């Protein structure tokens, strides 16, 4: 997005001039007083194309013109147009934005913060960010510039408010948060020592050295098993176990026919409501997969017998927090993260 009406029509959109023209005509006819030019809109659509080009197959291919048209048609044109008007500082656009979304922003902020004063402070901060009070190279840096229209403006605002609240807590409770972080980091070790103490009396047959050996191979085998999961399976487990999403919330996330996770689990693309029991079945499948690979790894690679594998499983829930090897469980960087770095957003 740009504040300059003199922006050239982006080369990436050369094959879609008619589509851009039609989109602009529609938007401008609904809101002729937003002060947005066709070039502004074209530049914004071009930015969206560039941002998602690497992953959408829009770049450097013969079919890219068709894909490009589809991509552009799927963008939230009205929302992009409104965001452009606001990024330019146009008051009619701001009035429309405020009318449509202020109550939504307020409800979100008040839901996430304990006092009304804190919520109001965050809302003020959000409006300042959206308007943009910093100027770089003669251009006011409005937060609206980072919105591309791939999702709805309301969804984007939800993320903006949520991040603003996190920043608010970070600013206010930096030291407290660090202490809490350390406490969380310490927790497994503390729990382990308590657990270990109780078990020492009960399970005298397991010498410390033997336990340690079993624990080490258990962690290694489990990390290996988790590392072999596909990203969508791993994400499902993480949403459920770590981020505390309920089955119905995951079901809602995958309910959209276009939902990425759903597409991975249901390749045939069935439509309709996703029931919580369906999500539970997906979880069960992921558990089974991990269990199978975990046992196989312990047996084949570490040469453990069935009884020894049972021992590993019996001590497995005591402490698996040591020796975390992120490399074995994570994937590489994405082009989207590079985009964000380049934009310098936080």
């Amino acid at each position, binding site marked *: 997005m740009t504040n300059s*009406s003199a922006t050239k029509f982006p080369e990436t959109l050369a094959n879609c001039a008619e589509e851009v023209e039609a989109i602009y005509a529609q938007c401008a006819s609904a809101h002729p007083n937003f002060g947005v030019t066709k070039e502004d809109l074209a530049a914004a659509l071009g930015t969206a194309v560039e941002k998602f080009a690497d992953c959408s197959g829009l770049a450097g291919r013969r079919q890219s013109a068709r894909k490009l048209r589809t991509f552009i048609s799927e963008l939230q044109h009205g929302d992009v147009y409104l965001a452009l008007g606001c990024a330019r500082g146009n008051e009619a656009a701001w009035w429309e934005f405020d009318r449509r979304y202020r*109550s939504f922003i307020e409800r979100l902020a008040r839901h996430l913060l304990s006092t009304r004063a804190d919520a109001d402070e965050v809302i003020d901060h959000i409006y300042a960010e959206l308007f943009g009070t910093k100027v770089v190279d003669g251009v006011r840096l409005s937060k609206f510039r980072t919105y591309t229209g791939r999702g709805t403006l309301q969804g984007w605002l939800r993320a903006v408010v949520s991040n603003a609240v996190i920043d608010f807590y970070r600013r206010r409770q930096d030291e407290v948060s660090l202490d809490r972080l350390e406490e969380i980091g310490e927790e497994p070790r503390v729990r382990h020592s308590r657990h270990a103490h109780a078990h020492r009396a009960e399970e005298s047959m397991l010498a410390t050295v033997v336990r340690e050996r079993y624990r080490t191979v258990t962690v290694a085998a489990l990390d290996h098993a988790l590392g072999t999961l596909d990203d969508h399976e791993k994400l499902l487990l993480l949403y459920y176990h770590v981020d505390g999403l309920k089955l119905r919330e995951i079901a809602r996330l995958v309910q959209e026919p276009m939902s990425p996770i759903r597409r991975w689990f249901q390749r045939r693309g069935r439509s309709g409501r996703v029931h919580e029991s369906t999500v539970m079945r997906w979880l069960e499948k992921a558990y089974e997969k991990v269990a199978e690979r975990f046992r196989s790894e312990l047996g084949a690679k570490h040469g453990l017998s069935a009884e020894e594998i049972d021992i590993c499983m019996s001590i497995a829930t005591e402490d698996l927090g040591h020796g975390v090897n992120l490399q074995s*469980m994570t*994937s590489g960087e994405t082009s989207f993260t590079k*985009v964000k770095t380049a934009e310098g957003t936080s």
Partner: protein
Amino acid sequence: MITVDKKAETIREMIGQRLKAVAVAELSNVPVQSHLDEDVIAAFVEGRLVDNECQPVLAHLAACGACRRASAQMVQLENQVDAATEVSDEEPGRLEAVLSRLRSAVPSINEEVVFAYQNPEETRQTEASDEAGDKQNND
């Protein structure tokens, strides 16, 4: 010997504990600059990304606790706060004051910005009222 049900429960617990432990370690291992932005997270949660776009996002979310938590919060907020989106009909004086304050905080730049307040509905009403007044005067 562990029973089948007990085994399944143990596996679930084991996986949950290990994932939590890894998530704690992640907090200090993922560079801040490499997070997904709001635009991508919102599009992901709304199911707007196509397969090719989605794969790197899935990979990032599976690896980055901060972004995953942000996306999880989007889902939770969608359930808790989005039930009804109200449209505010409040008079624009508050917004005018906000924009005026923000503008005064911005260093002077040559923007092609319309700073006069324009509410299309209000403008239409004023014009209609003026026209009616003119007509009465003429009569």
